[in-house]
């Protein structure tokens, strides 16, 4: 679906934003692009969506070179959720969606009411202007805008930002649903939980370079200490012991009356990110 070879981009003479990125995103894959502010992830997404021109290297989308890919046909096949909910504040959710969907062929469109229902949008706000909505509601309308044309390739920038935990769970469910339908998803985020739960593969980008690219599971496994911490009760006392995973093969290798908890010491995706990039995500 997406093939990027040696992608470079520069804002002016001395401001190189991307230093030769290489990655591919397969059909139906959720690909996470993780990096701190200013790392080059937005620039990459803008190049892929045709907003920024003048890149170096080779990029192809839907099997077509980027120089010729950004046609009206291409934009009919993609959906983009921006980091901020860009909507007409004086129009209602329905009017915003009617307006944005009017640029797509009618046979391609999903039913506006159905999409909003799926996003659990409060029906009493349907005809009220967007200016009266909470951030979470605006994000729902923006997501509906990105999904309204049944995209084959979906670009999501911080999809769960501004949502309460229930909203974040709902959005993850919807993204999963899109994956089941075969939609390819390019997910740009700071949120490691989103990336860990949703992405088939993730790329860590910092200072315009991809420093790691793999499945979240493998990234964590490769850097695991292969130890577990066990808390248990023995002869009325609460104790804790750290053991190597191979030691478990023959059962729990110490006397105990009751096991209280077992924790693997596997690193989180955020730990991995800091390890690879030397910086946090904020």
């Amino acid at each position, binding site marked *: 679906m997406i093939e990027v070879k040696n992608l470079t981009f520069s804002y002016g003479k001395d401001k190189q934003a991307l230093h030769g990125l290489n990655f591919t995103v397969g059909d139906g894959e959720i690909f996470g692009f993780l990096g701190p502010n200013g790392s080059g992830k937005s620039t990459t997404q803008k190049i892929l969506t045709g*907003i920024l021109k003048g890149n170096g290297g080779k990029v192809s989308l839907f099997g077509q070179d980027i120089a010729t890919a950004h046609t*009206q046909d291409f*934009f009919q096949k993609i959906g983009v959720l921006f980091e*901020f909910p*860009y909507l*007409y504040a004086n129009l209602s959710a329905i009017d915003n969606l009617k307006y944005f969907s*009017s640029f797509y062929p009618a046979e391609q469109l999903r039913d506006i009411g159905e999409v909003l229902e799926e996003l659990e949008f409060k029906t009493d706000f349907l005809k009220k202007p967007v200016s009266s909505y909470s951030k979470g509601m605006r994000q729902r309308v923006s997501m509906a805008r990105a999904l309204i044309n049944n995209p084959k390739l979906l670009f999501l920038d911080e999809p769960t930002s501004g949502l309460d935990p229930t909203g974040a769970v709902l959005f993850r469910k919807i993204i999963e649903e899109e994956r089941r339908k075969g939609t390819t998803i390019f997910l740009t985020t700071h949120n490691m939980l989103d990336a860990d739960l949703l992405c088939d593969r993730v790329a860590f980008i910092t200072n315009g370079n991809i420093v790691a690219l793999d499945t979240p599971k493998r990234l964590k496994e490769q850097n695991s200490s292969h130890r577990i911490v066990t808390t248990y009760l023995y002869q009325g006392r609460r104790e804790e012991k750290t053991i190597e995973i191979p030691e478990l093969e023959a059962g729990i290798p110490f006397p105990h009356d009751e096991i209280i908890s077992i924790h693997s010491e596997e690193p989180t995706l955020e730990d991995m990110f800091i390890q690879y990039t030397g910086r946090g995500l904020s």
Partner: protein
Amino acid sequence: MKNFYSLFKKDCQMMIAGKFIFVAFGSLLTYTLFINFGYINFMDMQLYNVYLYDPQGTQQEVSELIRPVASLEELDDALLADTNGVGIDASSGTPNIILYFGSEKVDNHRADYALSLLRSGDEYAAQIVGTNTTEQKQRKEMSCELLFIEIVAVGFLGIASVLFKEKQMGVIRVHAVLPLKRSLFVLSKLAVFLLSDLVFAVLLTLFNVGFSGTIRILPAVLVQTAILSLIMALTGFGCTMLLNDFKQFSLAYLVIALFVATPVFLSANTSIKMAWIGWHPFYQVYMGLKNAYFGTPVTSPVYYICTACGIAALFVVVQTAFRKEMGKEG
């Protein structure tokens, strides 16, 4: 075509939501009341009275319009009572002009008029240009000026206010990923503001020049209105894309409005002459509009080629600025 219709419909909604249309209707009402109940009633100045002190009778062929006085004191008293009047002291044999007040550049025409009354009729008879009555002339003159102000100042502000709203809402960036030609976004805005300016021009002319007068001049007036409207809409669009916020725009607006309107009005409507004014593009457009109102539209192809090139150049600048805006961060 379907995409253009969607954009056009939304732009009309934005214009109504921005209350710009009410401002335009308010302006139309105010201008019409001013012309019909103010300008044509109170601005119709009587001829200047000319007082002549010529104790030796040196002036042979004086006009009947001249009012002779018997002494310099009487001349002073007459000018004190009639401050617009012009005094001529011919006691030395040479007529000297005396004004109660005036300025060297602006009041030359009062002096010229007074001196012309001392000479024989035929040589200095004023040439009658056109067939307009004084009232028709005043109505056309003021309609033209107010239409120019409306487009240059109010319309220019209108497009900026609509676009700044869209810019602040970030929706311009969404259009970068929609299946539509980006130039349509600019063209739709231009169409909305052009249409509103043309409707405004028709109504203003109809209400103030009258039906039969309007029919005769309307096509030429609409052509000139369209030229001015496109130039101002594109300038407003470009400023909105290049400037960060409405505060910055307000400053730019003052500079542009001042640069565009002040020298043009001074040169076109007063005796103040500026040698360079012929190079001022808005002077040419203003005179084009004025000539259209007076039934002598511009026929020079150079004028139309220059305005078309200007509009095309502005369009390219606006397109470039628009693309940059779409690529900006949130």
